[in-house]
Each structure stands twice: as structure tokens, then as C-alpha cells.
């Protein structure tokens, strides 16, 4: 069940054990070789042979013996005279020179401090031979290859090392992948849900795993189920609320007409009718505001923005002719045919809200300009009116629900529910777009909407 834990634990353990084993084995082997080379040196055949050569024919004999050593002899033998020069005049390896210097220095330092310990002798005196002429020769044996080189030269060990490296690499890689692959899959699923694709689930291959990832995948999917269900429930709930709130309103309006028929038209009846209509549109807007959040992104479709915008403009022009907005004209300029993706209904009502807002704030006979253009990967819609604009400190709050400018508060009957622009903002943001308001230099308000253009699919 907890196999991921076990796998990570075992993998780390294995890698660390291999490393420790290799290091310990190599170190031990190296130390052992050095020890053998030096410990056995004095009594070795090499020293005895050198001693014999010196004894029988003096320095020339020693030189001849040195020169006659076979080329496959496992060690290099150096014989240094009192001056520290090799008898054959070969260059003495730096290691040996340094060893002698260290040896001498240590003695010197003992003396300089005036605390020479008479009972202290260097642990490993160098092998020395005394020639017939009382000349002192110091013998050095250096392995022909460095210990590491020799060790590596032995092919089986090389292979073993490679094998160890490869095995540990494979284990590490498998472990890393085992951890990161599911993480990537979870990430993809999470991003997709966050983008509004509520029916996203992680695949069966993940949920059927017997480890912690499998459990996580099952939990993830049941979380996504709940999320989707609650989104559906919210839609259902808003439908029910809508129905329940509107039924009394529907009866109210029929009752009102019946009353009208009996007593004739009264000014109060008109008022009741207006208020009932206002209540109805408020209910509608609150519901569409709350419903926007729960739209499933998978239901989005490609939308020809120019066409949609033209329809909205047409409707608002129609409204300008038929309603109390006198003589306001709407100009529509478009030089692009951008394709966006989203929900046509929501986008239409967002643009409608903004445009109607502009028309209702226009002076008599004023004009509203709508422009559609493309800026890079964005489609840009600007809507400009010739109204009084909005106080700068109120610009930032314009898109808050139920926000009304001070002038609108003074004349509530002229203005809508206070939700139109909030709905527009939410809808635009649902389409990954932005909406901004600014005052125009020569009066009036300018609203700028940007929507990402849908990448062309060929």
C-alpha cells in the first residue's frame, strides 16, 4: 500500500549503500597495496639483490644491477646518494624529493624548538645501504603506475565501476520519473480544472495504482466530481430560485391587469408595473451574475466577434429609435474579423450592457463610437460616449456590483440595476479578457475591452 514510501526509501538506501561500498572497497584496496609495497620492501628480494650487488662490486655493481632490472619489473627503484642524486642520474620523482625534505625538516624542527625528544624516532626509517667506501645509499621504491591507474587498468574492476554507475543512474532516474510523472499529470489536470474544464479527471492508469499516488488520484477525482456536482447544483439552484421568485411576480402582473380593467388606469398601477419589471430584471441579473462562474469551459464555442458585435450594435440602435434615448447614434467601425472562443450569450449580454450604458449616458443627439481592432494576440473593442464621464476616483469602482456613481444615485429611476457593468466585467474575465474604463480627454467615457484571439486551427 505504501509502496511509494518503500520505493523512495529503498532507492536512496541502495544508492547510498553502493556509494559507501565502492568508496570503502576502493580505499581499503588502495591502503592495502601501499602497505604491502612498503612493509614488505625491506625484506624483499629487491633490497637483498641491491645489497648483494653493492657488496660484491661497489657502486658500479649497484649501477649495473639497477640498469639490468627488467622493464616489466613492477616497481621503479631509485638509489640516491648522500647528495640526494640518483646514482643513474635519473630525475628523482617529486614525491620522493618531498618525502626526504619532510623527513629532514621534521628533524630540524625538533631541534629548533630545543625540545628534541631523544626517544622519538621516525616511524619508518628509509632503507639505506652502506657501500664499501662508506658511502650511504638510500633506496626508494615507487610503484610503476599510480595505484589508481593500476587499479583502473584491471578491466573487470573498470567494468564493475561502470556497472555501478549505470545501475545507480538508472535507479535514480526511475525514482525521479516515478515521482515527477504523476506530479505532472496532476498538474495538467489541476490547470485544466482551474481553466473551467470541470469534467477533467486523471486517467485510470493513475487511479488503479496501488500506492499513495493511486490514493491521491482517487481523491483528486472524487474532489473533481464534487466540484462538478456543486457547480451543477448551483445552476439548478439558481433556476429554482429564479422560478420561485418569478412566479409571484407573474401573478402580480396578471392581477395588476385585472385590477386595471376593473378600476381604469391609475398612476399607481404604472408605478407598480415599473417596480415589478425592475424587480424582475434585478432577479435576472443577479442570477446571471452568479451563474457566470459555473459555466463549464468545455461548452465554449468559436465566436466571430465582428458579427456578434454588429448584432449588439444593431439591437442598441433599434432601442435608440424606439425608446426614450433621443437621437443617440451608434457608429460602428471594424477593420478586423477576429475569432474568439467562449459563450456567445454571455459575451453578447456583456457587450450589450456596456453599450447600453454608453447610450444611456449620452446627451441628446450625441453619438457613441464602437471600434473593433486587433492588438497583437488580442481583439480590442473600444466604446466611447460623449456623456459627462465618471469622476476619476470612481473609475476604479465602476465595475463593482451595485456600484452607482453619485449622479446616478440622485436619479435612480433613470438607471438600471447597478449590475450591468459588473456582469460585463465578470463575463469578460471569464473569457480571459480585460475591461478598463477611462475618461476621454474631451469629455465622455471610454471603455476598452480586450479578448484573447482564438488561435487559428488549420
Amino acid at each position, binding site marked *: 500500500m505504501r509502496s511509494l514510501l518503500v520505493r523512495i526509501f529503498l532507492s536512496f538506501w541502495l544508492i547510498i549503500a553502493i556509494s559507501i561500498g565502492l568508496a570503502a572497497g576502493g580505499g581499503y584496496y588502495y591502503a592495502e597495496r601501499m602497505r604491502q609495497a612498503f612493509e614488505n620492501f625491506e625484506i624483499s628480494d629487491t633490497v637483498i639483490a641491491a645489497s648483494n650487488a653493492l657488496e660484491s662490486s661497489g657502486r658500479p655493481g649497484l649501477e649495473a644491477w639497477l640498469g639490468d632490472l627488467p622493464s616489466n619489473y613492477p616497481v621503479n627503484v631509485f638509489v640516491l646518494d648522500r647528495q640526494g642524486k640518483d646514482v643513474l642520474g635519473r630525475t628523482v620523482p617529486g614525491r620522493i624529493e618531498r618525502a626526504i625534505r619532510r623527513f629532514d625538516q621534521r628533524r630540524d624542527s625538533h631541534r629548533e624548538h630545543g625540545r628534541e625528544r631523544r626517544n622519538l624516532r621516525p616511524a619508518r626509517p628509509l632503507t639505506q645501504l652502506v657501500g664499501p667506501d662508506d658511502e650511504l645509499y638510500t633506496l626508494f621504491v615507487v610503484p610503476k603506475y599510480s595505484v589508481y591507474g593500476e587499479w583502473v587498468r584491471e578491466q573487470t574492476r573498470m567494468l564493475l565501476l561502470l556497472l555501478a554507475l549505470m545501475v545507480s543512474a538508472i535507479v535514480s532516474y526511475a525514482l525521479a520519473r516515478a515521482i515527477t510523472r504523476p506530479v505532472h499529470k496532476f498538474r495538467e489536470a489541476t490547470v485544466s480544472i482551474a481553466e473551467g474544464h470541470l469534467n477533467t479527471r486523471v486517467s485510470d492508469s493513475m487511479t488503479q495504482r496501488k500506492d499513495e499516488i493511486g490514493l491521491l488520484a482517487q481523491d483528486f477525482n472524487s474532489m473533481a466530481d464534487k466540484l462538478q456536482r456543486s457547480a451543477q447544483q448551483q445552476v439548478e439552484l439558481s*433556476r429554482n430560485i429564479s422560478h420561485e421568485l418569478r412566479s409571484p411576480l407573474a401573478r402580480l*402582473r396578471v*392581477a395588476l391587469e*385585472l385590477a386595471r380593467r376593473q378600476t381604469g388606469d391609475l398612476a399607481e398601477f404604472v408605478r407598480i408595473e415599473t417596480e415589478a419589471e425592475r424587480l*424582475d430584471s434585478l432577479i435576472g441579473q443577479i442570477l446571471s451574475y452568479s451563474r457566470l462562474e459555473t459555466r463549464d469551459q468545455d461548452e465554449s464555442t468559436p465566436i466571430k466577434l465582428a458579427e456578434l458585435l454588429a448584432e449588439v450594435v444593431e439591437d442598441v440602435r433599434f432601442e435608440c429609435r424606439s425608446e426614450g434615448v433621443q437621437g443617440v447614434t451608434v457608429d460602428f467601425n471594424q477593420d478586423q474579423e477576429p475569432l474568439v472562443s467562449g459563450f456567445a450569450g454571455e459575451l453578447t449580454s456583456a457587450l450589450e450592457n456596456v453599450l447600453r450604458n454608453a447610450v444611456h449616458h449620452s446627451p441628446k443627439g450625441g453619438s457613441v463610437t464602437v471600434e473593433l481592432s486587433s492588438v497583437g494576440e488580442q481583439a480590442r473593442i473600444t466604446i466611447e460616449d460623449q456623456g459627462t464621464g465618471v469622476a476619476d476616483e470612481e473609475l476604479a469602482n465602476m465595475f463593482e456590483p451595485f456600484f452607482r456613481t453619485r449622479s446616478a444615485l440622485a436619479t435612480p429611476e433613470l438607471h438600471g440595476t447597478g449590475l450591468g457593468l459588473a456582469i460585463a466585467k465578470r463575463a469578460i474575465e471569464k473569457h480571459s479578457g480585460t475591461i478598463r474604463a477611462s475618461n476621454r480627454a474631451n469629455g465622455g467615457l471610454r471603455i476598452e475591452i480586450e479578448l484573447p484571439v482564438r488561435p487559428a486551427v488549420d
Partner: protein
Amino acid sequence: MTHDVFELMNNATRPANILIVDDDQELGEMLRDFLAPDHLKLTACLNGEDGLKELQSGKFELLILDIMLPGISGLDVLKKLRQSNDLPVIMLTARGDDIDRIIGLEFGADDYLAKPFNPRELAARIKAILRRTKQSSRRSESCELGDIALDPRTRRATVNGEPLRLTGTEFEILRCLLETPGEVVSKDKLNERALGRRFMPYDRSIDTHISNLRGKLERAGAINETIQNQRGVGYLLIPGI
């Protein structure tokens, strides 16, 4: 023309029978009182099953159908009804619920009204549709264009001789377009003729009806004649070559 119609309706000895399917009983009762002076006799049903049973009597001239119903939904009632019946239908939808409206019109409703509605508006729409039904049965010249033929007397449409099922509204729109092939008919005129009311802003009923009509014509094999949209003006039927 309107005068003519009222005369015609007033002269009728029997009032028009209308069925309303709505779970709001009180609303139904009040509407019955409200519509009675207009010679509209309203029968109320509280759910879809009863509504479908009532409809089998065949005495109703129009159905008012609420989409939100307990049990089988208004859309299902509409779907079942349309399998065999061209009875004019006015749907009641929740305002702002575009999807219900569009699906309703696609399933063959003739018109829709957002609830809560102004009852005078409902009365006007009922009368408009009844007037259309009566009117078109009086105007009887049949028309023909390419593969398409319409017979207003029987309200039958055919494509290449094969019968084509259309709702009353779709039939009227097609007839309107067929009368002047190649000429743009304004949305206003289409509304007037097919729905008996003026075009209102934000009302895309005609567009939905046209798109249904296009689909039906295409599926029936009328590939030569196409209905085109003149943005901001109206629609026109392009005759085949």
C-alpha cells in the same frame, strides 16, 4: 387588415380554445379571467403528462407551455407534441435563460415570452398567431421556387415532391421569403408576418427560426436555394440557378 381580423374573430360564434400547461394554478386561473373578454377560452393543466393527454382531444388551437414543469419538462412535452402535431406553441421561459429559449424555438415552438410577462403582451401574441393561422388559410395561392413548393391551403411544404415538416412560423417565414426571391425581406416584416408582432431589440426569435428552417431545407435536399443574412437589414432567399 387588423380590423378585418377582429371582425373575423368577433363573428366567430365559438371562442378559441387555448391550453396552458403551467404548474402555477393561480396564475392559470387569473389568466383565464384575463383572456375571457378577448374570446379566448383558456384551459389550465398543471403538468406535462396531463397536458399531453388534453392535447389528444384535438380541440385546442394554441398551446401555452411553461418550460419549468414538475415531472416531464416543457421541452419534452414540446418534443413529443411535435412528433405528430403542428399546433402553434408559445413557450414561457425564465428571462435571461437564452438556452431554454433557443432550444425551445429549435424544438419547434412558434414564439416565446419571458416570465413574468405582461399579460396584455401574451394576449397580443396569442391573437397574432391565431390571426396568422386564419389569414394564411384564406390566402391560398400556392407558390413554388426551384425545389421548394408551398401550398398554403393545406399548409404543406414539399422539397422535390417530398413532404417537409415545418412549424407554422417556419412555414410563414419561408412563404414570405418565397414571394420575393432574391430580395431582402426586413426582420421587421418577417416578424410581422410570421409572429404577428413588431421586431423588438434583443429579440432573436426570427434568427433562430431562420436557422432551423435552413437546417430543415438542407436536410430535405433543397441545396440550390439558400437563405442569406443581410446583416442589420434582414434575410433573402437566393434562388437556385
